[in-house]
């Protein structure tokens, strides 16, 4: 193969980063060309990374040719590829949307001038997070994506967005420091920052436990797990809609992804069953609290943001199920793992679709009060369809991808005899029906509403595409299971073939 194509994973980080620097230095000059180039680059690199993974199996990339523990090593396996796929799908769609979202007024041009560099830096940082297997490099990449996310929220002209982003900044900085403190302890104890090296050296002990606890606190704050979720609704609801979509679909998943990586490799050794149950309990609380809050909201974007709080809860139910699997039948661990990753993917696609659809509504009627939705089903049929299809996945109804996620998690909890989690998840599904039907009821009301601005067709099409994608992943689960099996840690990969 020609050398350009041999290391496709490096382009995932490099192309958006250079796109960011270019759109910053040259502003609107040739912006459309740069954006198209970056999007094409992302699409090709993602496809090539997948091809490489399928042909070669899991592989690593030692940066600078320095082998760990001296240098930084990337590890590309099925889990990393799944997150990269999510980032690329949502990232490309949000970019297409944003090209139409920012209009030609002076204020919107100002927003666009800062949106593109920050957005491309965010994408680059996310890819960097999913590729790396170095605990200090994760700190750097979390800073890159986190700071870019803060900047993106402030682009909204609303004063609440500024308060929301300030709170987010403070929480994100605190969380980073907690994480970094844990990294320092682990480095002090084991003399390495490389995850694989650490996995070979780690031993149970008080320093290790404190380190992992500190890192966990930092990461659950980044992932907005209850009760550290309070920064999420104001930040996500007041940001510009393409930014809300990126934050809910991708950014919160980054913290979860790192936690999952640590959990899979380090925690089986440092058996911390109670910590896992604690995380599960917080997840259960998040499902109930987030859903209850979503039912109470009178603004569409706040409703969707609280729904994110609830849907993140499902991700954390995975941890006690994993531990039950490690203690009992490994099949449960496989179910829980596949279910958790499926949930991250399905929620990412469905939630991005919902936030982008909300952006279309705001464009059309000027605000996002739930009552403004009345009669819009007739005026914006594509957007209403997008909301309906995305909701199928969130409620966990077949054929949504969310159904497979929740079904796997339910199976794992029932099979391992942990009925409590199952009850909460079913309750969460019912509550999701509750808050989403508050949206649908209004959409389907017959009322002749004046649509202020006809939204660009492409904005509607993007939201609909993402919603359809969330169903496509639900129609056939085999490809994703096949992907997850590639390089899956032994602690979860044992029975992945046995999955339906």
């Amino acid at each position: 193969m020609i050398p350009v194509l041999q290391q496709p994973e490096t382009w995932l980080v490099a192309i958006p980063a250079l796109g960011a620097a270019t759109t910053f230095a040259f502003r609107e000059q040739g912006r459309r060309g740069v954006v198209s180039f970056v999007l094409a680059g992302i699409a090709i690199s993602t496809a090539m990374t997948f091809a490489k993974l399928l042909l070669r199996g899991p592989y690593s990339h030692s940066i600078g040719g320095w082998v760990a523990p001296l240098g930084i090593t990337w590890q590309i396996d099925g889990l990393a590829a799944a997150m990269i796929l999510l980032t690329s799908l949502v990232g490309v769609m949000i970019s297409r949307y944003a090209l139409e979202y920012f209009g030609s007024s002076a204020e919107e041009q100002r927003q666009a001038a800062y949106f593109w560099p920050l957005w491309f830096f965010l994408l680059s940082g996310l890819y960097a997070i999913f590729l790396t297997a170095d605990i200090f490099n994760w700190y750097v990449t979390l800073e890159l994506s986190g700071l870019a996310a803060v900047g993106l929220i402030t682009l909204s002209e609303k004063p609440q967005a500024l308060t929301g982003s300030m709170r987010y900044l403070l929480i994100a900085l605190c969380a980073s420091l907690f994480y970094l403190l844990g990294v320092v302890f682990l480095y002090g104890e084991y003399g390495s920052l490389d995850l694989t090296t650490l996995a070979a050296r780690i031993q149970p002990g008080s320093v290790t436990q404190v380190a992992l606890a500190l890192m966990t606190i930092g990461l659950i704050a980044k992932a907005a797990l209850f009760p550290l979720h309070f920064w999420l609704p104001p930040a996500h609801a007041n940001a510009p809609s393409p930014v809300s979509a990126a934050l809910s679909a991708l950014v919160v998943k980054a913290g979860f992804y790192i936690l999952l990586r640590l959990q899979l490799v380090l925690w089986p050794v440092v058996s911390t069953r109670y910590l896992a149950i604690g995380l599960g309990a917080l997840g259960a609380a998040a499902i109930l609290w987030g859903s209850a809050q979503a039912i109470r909201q009178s603004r569409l974007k706040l409703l969707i943001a609280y729904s994110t709080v609830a849907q993140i809860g499902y991700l954390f139910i995975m941890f006690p199920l994993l531990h039950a699997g490690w203690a009992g039948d490994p099949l449960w661990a496989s179910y829980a793992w596949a279910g958790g990753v499926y949930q991250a993917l399905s929620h990412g696609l469905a939630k991005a679709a919902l936030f982008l659809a909300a952006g279309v509504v705001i464009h059309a009627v000027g605000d996002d009060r739930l009552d403004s939705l009345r009669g819009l089903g007739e005026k914006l049929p594509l957007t209403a369809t997008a909301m309906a299809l995305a909701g199928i996945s969130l409620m966990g109804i077949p054929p949504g991808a969310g159904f497979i996620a929740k079904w796997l998690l339910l199976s794992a909890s029932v099979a391992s005899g942990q009925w409590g989690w199952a009850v909460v998840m079913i309750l969460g599904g019912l509550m999701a029906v509750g808050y989403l039907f508050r949206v649908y009821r209004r959409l389907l009301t017959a009322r002749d509403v004046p649509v202020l601005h006809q939204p660009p067709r492409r904005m509607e099409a993007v939201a609909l595409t993402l919603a359809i994608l969330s169903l496509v992943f639900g129609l056939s689960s085999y490809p994703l299971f096949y992907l997850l099996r590639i390089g899956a840690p032994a602690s979860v990969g044992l029975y992945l073939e046995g999955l339906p």
Partner: protein
Amino acid sequence: MSLRRKHRRWYRVSRWALLPVFIALAVVLVQTVLSTAPANGELPRLVDEEMSASGVLHPLTAVLLNFRGYDTLLEIGVLLVAVIAVWSLDASGKSGHLRLRLPSPNNAALRVDLSIILPLMVLMAGYMVWIGSYRPGGAFQSGAILGAAAVTLISSGMLPAPFGRSRRTRLALAGGFSFFMTVAILTVLFKGRLLNYPMAWAGTMILLIETLLAVSIGAALAALFAGVAGIKVDEPGSPSRREERGP
């Protein structure tokens, strides 16, 4: 009103309630620090062994620019993101304003001082980059000096504040990161790995990267100063300053 008072009281109570949490955290941290065994010397030994292949003679520079150069590359990205985020706030008039009273342009003492100090600062910055390869120094120290020089110029009114957002400034800001990233891409093309410098060229490339990084870091620090302060310039004796003294 009563709701607000209630809210405030709750805030005061919750603040005290957090105190034991922080004390407990502090105790745990101190205990952990004390019980941490000193790190084994494996990594320092590895750094020593590979120094000859790093292209530089100082271990810190070798780690920052070569062994873990990728971390540094991303950190420069973080610095650029910080500037972009601050600028995006400033343009919408959301950031605070610091009024800067400029000295009179005829202040001869200032001009003489600057004409001596500034060239020295630039010289020092160049020296810092140069010695980085064998002694403590390098892009960050050099950038800090350049940034200080730019801040001096801004606050003495010789560099237009708010530190013009011209194309030239933006190029200086993005230049270091773009060049570093371009080198990373070229090494992928020619050596098959990110930031894998050809051994014979490693020293030269690191020096080039550090020089451009120093300029970008200096520009970023100055831009952050000008941006965060939201500097509005008052010409000496201009009437607008008096209006600011309102209640």
